[in-house]
């Protein structure tokens, strides 16, 4: 029987995993929509507003899912983790309050104007509304990543009777890991949107659509992906070095390195064994991890065995989930690099998309449609499981913060939430492809077929 702590962690983990899927899309998609809107204002070309109208629907749907799952989280702080607010509420409270005040209302109010105001307000106000929504989602990301970073690398506070009191708001906001984490997350959002846009557009292309708006969306998605992925690899590396400095146990788990020593290998595959405290079936590159983390083959890298209490209790995170999620994230990133570079050649060289290579490139993009989600979730699991057993590193443990709600009660709500989340993700993905299919139909047979007489458009390839 699972205990309340584990169930509450799974519940919050499931909730935040579901939630992050949608802000990851809206944060960057808001700016891409602003780009489409500005191009339309500048050129007056209908293809830009066409692209805007398709993707604003995706934005609206993602936004609604993000809002409702976000509200769920704000309540779970109280229902499942009262210790969090009681102990560090003096820090977390103002950060969350500023998120609501500076971001939530801005997005929510101007979203209405952005979605339904095109013909009701002047063009400049519609553009401004689009900008304010994009700005609001980014502000929201800023505040929440400030808080999250503070939980990893707390600064600017003092403890009185176990309760944190703020001493320096500047140090709290610009805590040591915040700039790295924020940049890493914003780039992740950009990549998620880039591959979503490229993938869904590639799918429409393969179904036979050849409109100007589709070309622009495909080109925007692919270009954005190819530009952002090298930046993301660089930012990820810097974020890793920052983590090594502040949370060495997490990096040791990411590398499955048990002993502090020089010439630490880069483990490509292994089954970390927490019983024997070693790796089974390890395949590794000699001195690889030392070179990456210390830029020196003889560099000494801290190992997991440094983080064990005298009675043998591990004070480091569970190794296998951190090790594996890190590898999934990096592997997805490498696939993104290869696919986006190849696709960039295809979309920028005239006629390439109609060749056999073009078809394969487009298929690869379709396959990568949700790769941003995979990489983002894997990255979050790496960093958040990597913080265990702490909720706030060195200040508050996860076990101390959990509510004494009976386990069966948590289990029942968990089952309900999971069922809803699975159903909603399925509905979301199918609606995206339904909307894409509708766009294809509208493009290849501009005259809508009469109801009750389903006619397969001539130009549409067989499904």
């Amino acid at each position: 029987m699972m205990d309340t702590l584990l169930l509450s962690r799974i519940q919050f983990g499931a909730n935040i995993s579901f939630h992050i899927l949608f802000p990851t899309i809206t944060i960057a998609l808001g700016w891409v929509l602003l780009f489409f809107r500005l191009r339309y204002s500048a050129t007056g070309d209908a293809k830009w507003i066409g692209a805007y109208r398709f993707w604003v629907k995706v934005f609206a749907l993602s936004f609604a899912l993000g809002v409702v799952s976000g509200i769920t989280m704000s309540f779970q702080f109280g229902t499942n983790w009262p210790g969090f607010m009681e102990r560090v509420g003096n820090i977390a409270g103002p950060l969350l309050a500023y998120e609501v005040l500076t971001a939530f209302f801005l997005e929510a109010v101007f979203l209405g104007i952005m979605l339904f105001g095109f013909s009701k307000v002047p063009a400049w106000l519609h553009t401004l509304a689009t900008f304010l929504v994009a700005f609001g989602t980014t502000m929201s990301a800023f505040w929440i990543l400030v808080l999250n970073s503070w939980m990893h690398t707390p600064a600017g506070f003092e403890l009185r009777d176990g309760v944190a009191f703020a001493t320096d708001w500047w140090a709290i906001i610009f805590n040591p890991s915040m700039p790295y984490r924020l940049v890493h997350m914003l780039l992740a959002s950009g990549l998620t949107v880039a591959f979503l846009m490229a993938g869904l557009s590639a799918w429409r292309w393969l179904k036979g659509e050849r409109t100007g708006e589709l070309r622009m969306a495909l080109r925007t998605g692919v270009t954005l992906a190819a530009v952002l992925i090298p930046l993301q690899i660089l930012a990820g590396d810097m974020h890793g070095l920052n983590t090594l400095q502040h949370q060495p146990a997490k990096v040791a788990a990411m590398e499955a390195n048990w002993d502090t020593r020089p010439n630490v290998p880069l483990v490509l595959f292994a089954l970390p064994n927490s019983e024997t405290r070693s790796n089974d079936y390890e395949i590794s590159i000699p001195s690889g991890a030392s070179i990456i983390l210390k830029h020196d083959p003889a560099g000494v890298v801290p190992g997991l065995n440094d983080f064990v209490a005298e009675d043998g209790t591990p004070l480091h995170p569970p190794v296998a989930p951190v090790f594996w999620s890190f590898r999934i994230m990096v592997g997805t990133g490498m696939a993104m690099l290869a696919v986006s570079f190849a696709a960039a050649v295809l979309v920028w060289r005239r006629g390439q998309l109609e060749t056999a290579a073009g078809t394969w490139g487009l298929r690869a993009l379709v396959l990568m449609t949700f790769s941003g989600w995979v990489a983002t979730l894997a990255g979050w699991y790496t960093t958040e499981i990597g913080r265990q057993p702490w909720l706030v590193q060195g200040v508050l443990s996860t076990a101390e913060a959990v509510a004494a709600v009976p386990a069966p009660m948590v289990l029942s709500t968990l089952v309900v939430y999971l069922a809803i989340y699975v159903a909603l993700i399925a509905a979301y993905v199918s609606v995206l492809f339904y909307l894409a299919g509708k766009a294809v139909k509208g493009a290849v047979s501009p005259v809508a077929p009469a109801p009750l007489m389903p006619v397969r458009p001539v130009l549409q390839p067989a499904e």
Partner: protein
Amino acid sequence: MFADPALSLPVIFAGLMGLSILAYVVLDGFDLGVGILFPFAGNDERDRMVAAIGPFWDANETWLVLAIGLLLVAFPAAHGMILTALYLPVAVMLVGLILRGVAFEFRAKVAPPHKAMWNAAFFAGSLMTALSQGFMLGLYIMGLVWTPFTVGFALLTAVCLAAGYAFIGATWLIIKTEGALQKKAVRWARSGLYGVLAGLGAVSVASPLVSPRIFDKWFTLPDMLFLAPLPLLAVALVAMIHISLRHLPDSRDRFAYVPFVAATVLFAVCFAGLAFSFYPYVVPEKLTIYAAASAPESLAIILVGTVFVLPVIIGYTVLSYFIFRGKAGELRYD
């Protein structure tokens, strides 16, 4: 008393939280109410009902986030006590909010055969949210204690709040619609008013009986005289709503806003009465706002932001209602 921030800040934040809850109950109340009225409307009418709330619902719901956020940041100890005591109704409410929030988007975007399913989800989500909020209100009045009696009372307030939301939703539709749908909305508002009256009666009788402290507040001189305007005002407003509903819809569409405005004032009056009953407690009879408040330095930094930002929020909210004024047409992205 106001010279000492440890005493004045909790009162200010309790006031801000109260205002957020009131704004939420009125604003999300009317759009939840429209969802509750869904089964009574025809299929073609439902799109117009959603169009009447479409541009607003998201911002309306943000007041709940602000209210719970203020409870969380200003009174963290109370936040934990209240929410763990209300674990299950909160979960039901969250599921309801999820269902109706996503149904707004899905019902407009899915393939036509699936629309009926999302319409049902929109109704079910709205009703679940309203019922669970009413349940929480009832249990809060009963001191957050779970006994057969308190749960029975909470179930009663659950139904009454749902009726109240349907009522204020109907008064909103009277403003935003015309023709046959407006006529229907007037009928819905008339029926909903009975639910409001039942709820008002139940809460007014029960809260002084449950707590001697609240009884003394309302039935001791001279306080009784100062408080007398509240119930009298409530009676006058109910009469005003009743009379206006009998004369609506007006052939030249005059006075369509009267029931909604009067309902808003009525909700505010009832809320003021409740707030007065429970002050200074944030957890009934257990924890006062002073004992539950965060550190003054943390509250001060939030207050600075709030003083600057809240007027701006109110400003652009008013702008949005102004842009989408008048009768609701078809909701379109172009």
